């Protein structure tokens, strides 16, 4: 196991036992022992005053490096929904460009479904090549055809890194690709970086409901695969004259054992609930006191071109559907602006929104934990603050 106790240093104080989330450490004969239930989460490392807990280094020499060297280049899976390429694809191309430069390699996009002209657009966003399949089987999203064709292409062309959006689609089918290729997949990354001495991809992601961040490596297998949250990477530059190559791929022999019978657009329910891609989110909690409170937030949302979010309390009260819920059991969001109205800020809510660029908290209770996460806080009654904010924003708009 890669975590070991230096018995000469361990005092048997038990500090590590209290931090281990898995009860994996026991004291035996006056010293700590890390047992078989260790999940390698390393929570114990910094708890030891004596520095007695050590990582035993992975033996990189035993890794067959020749094999790894055959893999090169960065690929981005460009997700489309209803024939429209999702913005996260452009963000991934921006990030992919940097990684490819650090590895001195090329950047390719993969597009299944949508139009050939969309493949051209991906080139303008930074792809050198686009593997494109316009087969009808990709019209609606099903997991198996996407997994099958992407796996085929990866096996054939051997990219070193494969990225996709950490969206409903990316998070659903990319694990199948990883399992088929028997390679590592890191979920929901918020930062990617090339390790200088090894060239490995350092993939950083939140875990434990956002309470900790973990940096993950896949040093033994290729490709290194990661899903990346929308909105955390910056799109590259759009160059209308950029040239590249589109490589047509056919979907011969691809099958699907699932079938989409009907798609229900959220627009049909009257509200935009794509929280993950929203630039502005106006969120309401128990402080709204009822369904009507969301009416007031709607007005603010319309002014700011925002989307409505909610805390679990508001959802559990039945004031607004679950698809609006932000937090550990709902969506994780990172908009440019998050306005929390009447939300106390339980840790489960905070982990879902604390990476937003700017957070505004409006709450009656000056002690509410939401203020610890907020960039700007206003202590006051929502029924006064929001109408006044709406009025001021209207005035500003009128003045422009």
């Amino acid at each position: 196991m890669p975590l070991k106790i230096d018995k000469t240093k361990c005092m048997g104080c038990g500090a590590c036992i209290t931090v281990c989330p898995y009860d994996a450490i026991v004291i035996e004969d006056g010293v700590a022992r890390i047992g078989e239930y260790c999940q390698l989460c390393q929570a114990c490392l910094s708890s030891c005053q004596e520095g007695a807990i050590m990582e035993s280094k992975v033996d990189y020499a035993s890794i067959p490096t020749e094999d790894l060297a055959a893999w090169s280049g960065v690929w981005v899976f460009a997700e489309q929904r209803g024939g429209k390429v999702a913005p996260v694809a452009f963000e991934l191309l921006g990030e992919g460009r940097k990684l490819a430069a650090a590895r001195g390699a090329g950047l390719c996009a993969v597009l299944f479904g949508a139009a050939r002209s969309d493949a051209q657009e991906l080139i303008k966003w930074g792809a050198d090549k686009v593997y494109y399949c316009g087969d009808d089987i990709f019209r609606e999203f099903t997991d198996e055809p996407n997994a099958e064709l992407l796996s085929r292409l990866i096996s054939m062309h051997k990219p070193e890194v494969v990225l996709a959006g950490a969206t409903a689609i990316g998070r659903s089918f990319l694990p199948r690709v990883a399992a088929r290729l028997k390679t590592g997949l890191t979920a929901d990354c918020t930062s990617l970086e090339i390790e200088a001495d090894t060239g490995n991809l350092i993939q950083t992601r939140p875990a434990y409901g956002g309470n900790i961040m973990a940096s993950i490596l896949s040093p033994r297998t290729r490709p290194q695969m990661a899903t990346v949250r929308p909105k955390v990477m910056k799109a590259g530059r759009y160059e209308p004259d950029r040239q590249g190559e589109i490589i047509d791929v056919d979907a011969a022999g691809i099958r699907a054992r699932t079938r989409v019978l009907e798609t229900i657009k959220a627009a049909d329910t009257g509200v935009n609930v794509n929280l993950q891609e929203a630039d502005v989110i106006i969120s309401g909690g128990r402080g709204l006191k009822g369904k009507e409170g969301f009416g007031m937030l709607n007005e603010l949302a319309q002014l700011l071109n925002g989307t409505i979010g909610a805390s679990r309390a508001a959802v559990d009260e039945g004031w607004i559907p679950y698809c609006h819920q932000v937090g550990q059991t709902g969506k994780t969001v990172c908009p440019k602006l998050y306005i929390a109205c009447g939300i106390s800020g339980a840790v489960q809510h905070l982990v879902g929104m604390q990476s937003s660029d700017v957070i505004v908290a409006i709450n009656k209770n000056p002690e509410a934990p939401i203020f610890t996460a907020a960039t700007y806080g206003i202590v006051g009654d929502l029924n006064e603050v929001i109408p006044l904010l709406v009025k001021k924003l209207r005035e500003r708009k009128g003045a422009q």
Partner: protein
Amino acid sequence: MRIAVCIKQVPDTAEVKINRETGTLVREGVPSIINPYDTHAIEAALSIKEQLGGTVCAVTMGPPQAEASLREAISLGVDEAFLVTGREFAGADTLATACALSGVIKKIGADLIICGKQAIDGDTAQVGPEVAEFLDIPHVSYVKKIIEAGAASIKVERMMDEGSDIVEASLPALITVVRELNTPRLPSLKGKMNAKKAEIKKMGAAELELPVDVVGFNGSPTQVKKIFTPGPRGGRKKLEGSLEEQIDALVNELVEKKCL
């Protein structure tokens, strides 16, 4: 219909606190629970069984104390329980976990496999789809409604980023479920009695006929390089004055930060 539910025992991360000074997790007093999404998976399995008849098995991979979550599953009405345990499984990432779980499911057989959307500690949501791939069966993620379960296929509604889809999958298949699907039941008195005396079947790599280099740490391509706690947010600003002054200041700040 034979249904297998994959459940994971997890520390209740909602109760985990961070010691900001040392940057470590404070585990003391944090209970181990069945991953909350998996309780919805159990409920879904039990209600399908009530409609169509059959059996429900619960499967977990974990340390011996994970037996407690299997007993809890039995108290809710699950018929059989399997614990995959042993040193060889320690340190598994999602690939190695899926490999072990698919190994058990191959042994015990199932027409429908139900997983939670994600575990609240690892948070990856990868195990379900990976199990489906290992078993070479279709899967549907983020199921929020089971419309119809039949002998040969299942019709469900899944959540997407911009709405939802009605999807039909041929059986055997795997689904992962979200909280919206149902409200988990409470254990009955009879269930609790059953749970006490039920036999939990334990399996190691040998019983599953899996080589030890495909499970646990050895079978895991991903490795945790380091763990750290997210730093506190910088750039906090206090707004001063009357409510109106504060709101004026806020609007100005938001304009400056190009939020409007």
